[in-house]
């Protein structure tokens, strides 16, 4: 118990340091760094949506970029027509959520790959639609907007102000999502992910919770689209690209499935790795990014969020030999019961390996 308390206070301090860094960083950084930080906040929200559907509820979603693009287009249209920004933000949340819910109402009876295929279809259909309705979207040339300039009283530069705006949006989204996944709904998600039949037996409707998860993910995708427009000030059909969806899924797993901290790490990965690859050799970015992705998966198959546990695990293995390695998994107390989906997988994977 004492250990637990100590851990909690360590976490508190870490959280406080993290918050101070978040607030102070843009004041001392270049516009380029701020742009990266702001992009991390943008994609963290989109990734949070992916994580709620995939990580927490266990459903494959390969269409998040469609909601990101939809949100960005709604924002661009609203800004161009001079609507109040708060209304625009609300629309960016509500409309994609409604679209996501409609799709999910039809599709959530499916599972696995059939469901995945329907989500793949969203960006595939969305891109030509975006080109077709050019009055609304600006067509293939995209929509350029200029808004969210730093107000005079703030004394901030535009890049700093925009960073704070998207940071606030991200923080609110994360706090709400954290409460959601740690509460009753989160437990229901976990049961649906574990076994739909069991969920039914327990009186949890898998269909309803899948629709809910998709709706929340679409909502977060739309909000991320609003943030995207704030930061980039431009959107085009490229925003909807299917490959963005794929990369988001990769970043979600790299960060850590069913983990809030992992979502943030995944967003950092999503934004920073291409920059790193460019720094190494701009003509070889694909090769370098692919190698980094595989390397992380090999070292930390359960994502960057598992790094502390992995380090502990490895050091335990070193000092205690083979028998010690399994010890950390068998502590079903406070910290780990907060994230139930994490428990059952490791033993299963181990069994499988022994079987071969």
């Amino acid at each position: 118990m004492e250990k637990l308390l100590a851990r909690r206070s360590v976490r508190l301090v870490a959280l406080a340091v993290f918050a101070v860094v978040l607030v102070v960083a843009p004041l001392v950084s270049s516009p380029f760094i701020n742009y990266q930080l702001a992009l991390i906040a943008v994609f963290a929200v989109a990734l949070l949506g992916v994580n709620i559907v995939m990580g927490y509820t266990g459903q494959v979603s390969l269409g998040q970029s469609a909601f990101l693009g939809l949100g960005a287009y709604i924002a661009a249209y609203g800004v161009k027509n001079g609507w109040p920004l708060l209304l625009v933000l609300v629309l960016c949340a509500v409309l994609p959520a409604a679209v996501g819910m409609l799709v999910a109402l039809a599709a959530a009876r499916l599972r696995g790959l059939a469901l995945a295929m329907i989500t793949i279809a969203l960006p595939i259909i969305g891109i030509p639609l975006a080109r077709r309705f050019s009055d609304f979207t600006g067509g293939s040339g995209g929509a350029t907007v200029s808004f969210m300039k730093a107000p005079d009283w703030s004394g901030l530069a535009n890049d700093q102000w925009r960073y704070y705006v998207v940071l606030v949006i991200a923080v609110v989204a994360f706090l709400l999502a954290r409460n959601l996944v740690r509460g009753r709904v989160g437990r229901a998600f976990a049961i649906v992910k574990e076994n739909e039949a069991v969920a039914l037996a327990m009186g949890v409707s898998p269909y309803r919770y899948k629709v809910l998860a998709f709706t929340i993910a679409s909502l977060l995708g739309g909000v991320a689209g609003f943030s995207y427009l704030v930061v980039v000030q431009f959107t085009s059909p490229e925003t909807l690209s299917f490959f963005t969806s794929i990369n988001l899924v990769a970043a979600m797993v790299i960060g850590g499935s069913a983990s809030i901290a992992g979502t943030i790490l995944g967003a950092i990965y999503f934004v920073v790795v291409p920059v790193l690859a460019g720094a190494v050799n701009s003509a070889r970015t694909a090769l370098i990014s692919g190698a980094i992705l595989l390397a992380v998966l090999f070292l930390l198959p359960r994502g960057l969020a598992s790094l502390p546990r992995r380090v502990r695990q490895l050091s335990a293995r070193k000092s205690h030999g083979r028998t010690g390695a399994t010890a950390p998994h068998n502590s079903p107390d406070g910290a780990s019961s907060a994230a139930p989906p994490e428990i059952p997988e490791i033993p299963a994977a181990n069994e499988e390996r022994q079987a071969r």
Partner: protein
Amino acid sequence: MQYFIQVVVDGVATGAIYGALALAIVLVNRATGLINFAQGAMAVMATFVAFALTRAGVPLIAAALAAFAFAFVLGALLERVVVRRFEGGDPDIAVVATIGLLVLLTGISAAFFGYEPHPFPSFFPLGTVNLFGVFLSFRSLGTIVILVVAMVALQVLFRSTKLGLAMRAVADNPRSSALSGLPVSRLLMIGWGLAAGLGALAGILVAPQLFISPGMLDFALVYALAAAILGGLDSPVGAVVAAAFIGVVENLAGAYIDVIGDDLKIAVPFAVMIVILIVRPQGLFGRKVVVRV
């Protein structure tokens, strides 16, 4: 009427491109229960081997055989070295590993050959057959014939050979397969090797039309995935039929529905697919999966 038939025939020819890759996806899924996003990138790499050989003066048929051999080894090796580590665990992680392979292999191909598309020789001459005013090019005809042969061969492999049955058993339940004495590790490698070989075949068949470049099959992969899933994922026949279906529906919508036009026609088969999957989640030819509790 003649125009209608022409539009349908063109659709089948387009579908053949997706179908070839879809077969490879089905094979991997049958052998390992996974979806392999790197299937296209592996195929492209093997096709580049054939490309380099033909450029060095090797006859196409020999170059193609070399590409098969290369693809088989590459597939088996990637299964053993990379994918094996993630099998049996969370399937999401295994799928993301194949996404990593997709990016990495594309990068390697590009490092050697650049991103610009290069012409690639074909087994079949240019030109067309003209049947009552409907045109079909020799290349499309050849692709379709080879595709059907491959499809039948796969069907026979899974239904009637020991190897095929053993592979299916391993995909279904690796643990019991191991207990009953099947060489699970080797079977998994063979499954990936064969799928990669099939991918190489697909690559060599479509490269004359698409031109060889690292991203040659990126877009085709999406269609191929759709065909594989729509067809039922465990059925070679289903994958090929679904691929042809996608090609035909897309073409018909573009040709006959003015509102749809050339830009939105891609949306039609996907919309139809959504409806079909909602009615028949197991796909057109798939068997219903019984969920164990």
